């Protein structure tokens, strides 16, 4: 080996630590459509091998544009993309062999059966999985000879994911995999994703469901206006709010009193206060301390409760805190 190609052990260790553990890396990604809007506006992302990574954000945040750039289906206006240490435009065929993709809306051929669609997609890959095994995994074996147009929404979505899995990918891209599905179908899909992860697969998914991101993802990037505005594990991000519980309440005949908000912030265990329409939301560490103090404060100020609920803080609260908007306002 010529000396110039001999790499030092230190360099190799460094490369392994930083680069080789990354399945997806993109830097300063921009995408502008028809010189109008910046759908993606300087986005940076690093997805580690073997993790389930979620892009969470409202509709129009640039999630789909981002994932389609990473999938090599859209060309960014500028920015760097590296998938499995390769780049689009140079290694397309090898990359296609290693990626499994489910687009936001694909209508698979209506008049083909589940089995036929899967063997069609299987034929595109050099090395893939047995269509029967994948069918079994997504619980569609019974529907093997059923036409696609006779499937329910959940079954179609599972078939779409099966088409992504049949090539035995290293990375699975799922764009809004459970949008519009009933709770049971969503849980079935989550099981499929978890199973893929157990087999050391890497997953990048987009969603606007915070519960999906919380349950499924090791790490989440919250995306708004084409940028990552927060990054971390769901638990870390929620913990960063200060209180893991939220008390929401509304008052009878409340007349927008500034001083009440200030005094609420001083109540025991309350970490943050925000007004929520006609009522308030308090981020609280210990509800059993906060609620008695709250009741006492309201009695003292002559207010009476119209409603009061408590719940765990969610990624939705993280998003609201960061942007002042709800995920599903748009």
């Amino acid at each position, binding site marked *: 080996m010529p000396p110039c190609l001999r790499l030092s052990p230190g360099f190799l260790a460094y490369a392994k630590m930083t680069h080789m553990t990354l399945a997806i890396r993109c830097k300063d990604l921009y995408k502008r459509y028809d010189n109008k809007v910046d759908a993606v506006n300087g986005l940076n992302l690093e997805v580690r091998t073997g993790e389930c990574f979620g892009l969470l954000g409202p509709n129009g945040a640039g999630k789909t544009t981002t994932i389609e750039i990473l999938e*090599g289906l859209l060309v960014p206006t500028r920015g760097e993309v590296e998938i499995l240490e390769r780049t689009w435009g140079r290694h397309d065929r090898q990359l296609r062999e290693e990626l499994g993709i489910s687009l936001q*809306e694909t209508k698979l051929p209506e008049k*083909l059966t589940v089995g036929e669609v899967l063997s069609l997609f*299987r034929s595109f890959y050099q090395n893939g999985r047995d269509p029967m095994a994948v069918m079994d995994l997504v619980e569609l074996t019974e529907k093997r000879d059923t036409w696609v147009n006779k499937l329910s929404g959940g079954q179609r979505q599972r078939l779409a994911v099966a088409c992504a899995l049949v090539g035995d990918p290293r990375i699975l891209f799922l764009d809004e995999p459970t949008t519009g599905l009933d709770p049971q179908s969503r849980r079935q899909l989550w099981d499929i994703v978890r199973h893929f992860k157990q087999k050391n697969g890497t997953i990048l998914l987009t969603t606007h469901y915070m519960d999906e991101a919380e349950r499924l993802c090791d790490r989440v990037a919250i995306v708004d206006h084409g940028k990552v505005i927060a990054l971390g594990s769901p638990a870390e991000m929620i913990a960063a709010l200060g209180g893991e519980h939220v008390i929401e309440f509304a008052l009878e005949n409340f007349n927008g009193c500034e001083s009440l908000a200030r005094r609420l912030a001083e109540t025991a265990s309350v970490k943050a206060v925000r007004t929520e329409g006609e009522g308030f939301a308090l981020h609280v560490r210990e509800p059993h301390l906060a609620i008695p103090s709250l009741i006492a404060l309201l009695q003292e100020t002559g207010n009476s409760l119209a409603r009061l609920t408590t719940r765990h803080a969610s990624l939705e609260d993280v998003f609201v805190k960061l942007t002042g908007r709800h995920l599903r306002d748009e």
Partner: protein
Amino acid sequence: MSRWKPFWELSICRFREFMREPEVIFWVFVFPLLLAVGLGIAFRDRPPEKTFVAVINQSGAATLAEQLNRSGNVQAEILSAGQAHNALRLGKVAIVVVPGTPVQYQFDRMRPDSLLARSILDMVLQRAAGRKDPVSTSDQIIVEPGARYIDFLIPGLLGMNLMGGGMWGVGYVIVDMRIKKLLKRMMATPMRRSDFMLAMIFSRLVFMIAEVFLLLTFGWLAFGMIIRGSISSIVVVGLLGSMCFAGMGLLVASRAQKIETVSGLMNLVMLPMYVLSGVFFSSERFPKIFQPFIHALPLTALNDAFRSVILEGSSLVSQAGELATMTAWGLVSFLLALRWFRWN
């Protein structure tokens, strides 16, 4: 996976989808047969029709009508002037005769049946008055399969069908797949684009053979059509024709994002050819200055080549011009389509 597995899977899926659409089966296979039956019956060879004549009711009308009716091929009726002209206008009679000296014929010289009626009537009246024909003639009636309307029609229907099949079977199907994001989904796999295109074209070839076989067999069984050309020559003409229209289908579908767009484009391409390219009647009927343009159309080339090969048994070499026209259209369309094609 072997190199050609994706191509075969794509082709087989095309066949399955096609065979599972009853409407498509109707339009591709049944409709042309119905058209052939309908037109074959409407324009079948019939005994010569009688010439219908109105004689205006005035002195001498009865004698004149009797003379005309006696000839056998003329059906004369005595009517008032008003009724007679009405009957002429409505096409119930071909000509109006006014008795007297001279006998007057009233007719529209733009109507071929009226012109024919005038010469028949004149001959009958002159002969009845004692004219002797100086030249003796005799008629021999020949009905030759191959010269009938149905023989002309079936190759035309075949050409029309291959055009429709190529345009709809490729153009419409691709736009539908684009709208459903299926093209984009396939682009996200390692599938070779060329395999996809080849499978599209290959499926057209297989359907072409089925269409040609069905229509020709039907023409032979139902109308006693005689096929003089060799099967291989007919298939070669069909092959070039369907390639040509598959290429044009690909071209109209290369960028269209909506079904309305591609339907409009296909009609724009196909309608002029339905009319001009000699499907139902000979394209030679159009004025001479249009002929170079009409002959440059791919459907004209396909229809002419089919008719020569099927009806006259001409060799492929004699059809080189037509085959070249189709190849040129197909090739140019295909290359442009490759250049403009959008997968998403």
